[in-house]
């Protein structure tokens, strides 16, 4: 009897692993790939691709730290990746299975090496900046022709914000981006982890809080495109999507995106393979497929974000590679900074400060 149960269990186990061997489960950000690529991957490899999406690093990280997510490939942002690597959430990549890795861009790998030393656990998927999206017409009407649309003065100087409140301002609900921005405005190190320095941000926000309509990390795309708001602190590709939607709707809304001239944050979304991935081999095949120059170019042409694949650049459309808001010049890149993850104590200070800024409690 026991023998039979054992045989059955082993058989079921084998069947399950056989099912896993021809499936790859990918967990990526929403609206972040050209869906034709998913079909192309299935066609080329014969593997079944199960593609799920998320919309915040926190949700992904909680899944990773709980363990047993069942995903083979996930896409955390650099700072989150670093912490998850320390927690033991990811496995080292097997470079022999990733011949396309030679396509990667050293400019990006140098920077991502800050989060993932030697890029041993991850490859770059997309990168971008956090900056200011404006409705050019409305802002110039309220602040004059020489409105500082590429400066943090626009969003942190109460005099400007008081006027802009009339047409609506949204801020990202992301303390890891908004606190470094305010620190840059104060002339402090944006990557400061000193609670006393971070606390200075409170005064900056106290001055402009009454004029901020909402803290939200995705609604601003539509709100900007429809002309409901005139300023949004947001992510480069998202603001550019708003610009394109407005252009398509032909509603007279002209959107511009700028990384702040005082210094803007540069971030990297990295693909990595969880330690307990059911199909690590399929995961490597997916990474290799993504690192193909033409595939990566197709993804960037679709989502308007820059990628970390140098070989893909010759296949990018002119309105992507030629747009300094997507691919900043080498000189402009000098002006961009990266940040490192907060340790738990500082993280608590940051979250608490952010709650206080938003709710006044």
């Amino acid at each position, binding site marked *: 009897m026991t023998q039979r149960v054992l045989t059955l269990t082993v058989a079921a186990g084998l069947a399950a692993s056989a099912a896993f061997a021809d499936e790859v489960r990918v967990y990526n950000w929403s609206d972040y790939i050209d869906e034709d690529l998913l079909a192309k991957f299935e066609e080329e490899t014969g593997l079944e691709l199960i593609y799920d999406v998320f919309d*915040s690093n*926190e*949700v992904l*990280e*909680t899944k*990773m*730290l*709980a*363990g047993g997510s069942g995903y083979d490939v996930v896409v955390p942002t650099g700072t989150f990746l670093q*912490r998850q690597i*320390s*927690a*033991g*959430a990811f496995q080292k990549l097997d470079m022999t299975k990733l011949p396309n890795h030679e396509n990667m861009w050293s400019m990006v790998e140098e920077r991502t090496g800050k989060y993932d030393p030697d890029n041993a656990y991850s490859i770059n998927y997309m990168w971008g900046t956090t900056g200011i999206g404006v409705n050019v017409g409305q802002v110039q009407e309220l602040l004059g022709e020489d409105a500082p649309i590429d400066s943090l003065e626009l969003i942190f100087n109460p005099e400007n914000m008081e006027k802009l409140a009339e047409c609506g301002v949204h801020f990202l*609900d992301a*303390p890891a981006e908004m606190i470094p921005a305010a620190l840059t405005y104060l002339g402090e190190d944006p990557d400061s982890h000193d609670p006393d320095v971070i606390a200075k941000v409170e005064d900056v926000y106290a001055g402009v809080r009454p004029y901020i309509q*909402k*803290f939200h990390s995705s609604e601003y795309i539509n709100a900007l495109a429809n002309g*409901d708001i005139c300023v949004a602190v947001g992510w480069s590709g998202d603001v550019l999507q708003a610009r394109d939607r407005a252009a398509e709707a032909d509603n007279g809304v002209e959107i511009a995106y700028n990384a702040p001239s005082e210094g803007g944050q540069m971030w990297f979304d990295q693909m990595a393979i969880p330690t307990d991935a059911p199909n690590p081999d399929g995961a490597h095949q997916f990474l290799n497929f993504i690192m193909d120059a033409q595939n990566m170019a197709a993804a960037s042409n679709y989502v308007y974000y820059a990628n970390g694949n140098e070989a893909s650049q010759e296949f990018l459309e002119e309105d992507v590679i030629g747009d300094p808001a997507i691919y900043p010049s080498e000189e402009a890149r000098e002006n961009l900074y990266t940040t490192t993850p907060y340790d*738990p104590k500082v*993280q*608590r200070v940051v*979250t*608490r400060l952010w*709650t206080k800024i*938003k*709710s*006044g*409690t």
Partner: protein
Amino acid sequence: MRRIFVIAVPYLWLLALFLVPFLIVLKIALSDMALAIPPYAPTLDFQAGWAGIKAFVSELDFENFTFLASDDLYWKAYLSSLRIALVSTFLTLLIGYPMAYAMARSPEAWRPTLLMLVILPFWTSFLIRVYSWMGILSSEGYLNQFLLWIGLIDTPLAIINTNLAVYIGVVYTYLPFMILPVYATLEKLDGQLLEAAEDLGCSRLSAFWLVTFPLSRSGIIAGCFLVFIPTIGEFVIPSLLGGSDTLMIGKVLWEEFFSNRDWPVASAVAVILLLILIIPIVLFQRNEQKQRESEG
């Protein structure tokens, strides 16, 4: 033997579905945060045997609970959630009771249809119904457009992202949970009792207050619990309809869990929330039982 079985089943049920999950959460609340999978320490190591359990217990402490007391955010959030839940329960009762009363007094042939209409919203996902309130209440939404059109207001009312929107969302969502139990008690009400009351000189209004209302008390209590308990920990409605200044414990708990990755403090918040709910309910039940015994 059969008697033991009959008693054991509800207790086993309580043990498996309430006590064990509660103990797991309590255990995490007494642990410390760690950078690991899962993100807290210590974890219980059964293989080390009795020594492992002893080492585990010695590392537990109440640090997270003292931390909750040190920051005013938490008690303010509990109080604000309590207030929102109490006001919403009262409003739901105010709106739901007359509806249930009218249903119970309607011709018998209509009742199944009316009951169906109350249940009908459940056919659509809760999330979609809350999203559609965003469409109704927003500044370009249907409500504002209608009010502008009839000329009642000149500028759109700011309802979305305020506590008012949260009240509207909660009352709308939980109204059926009030109507159904109240309707169930009112429908069973013996009509002859009212006739008797009127024969004895009651006006219709005083007959309602002296007979109908007290007899529907059990339905009112059930309805109030069904609305109050889920509302106090509500997360979806305040995060979709509320503003950045809507303070509710469900949102605070989310932030502890997701933004701070602090499962132990998040669990401590959950344990306190449970105590806030359970202690008054147990006291209430005990009081009810005493009353019944003294009457009986």
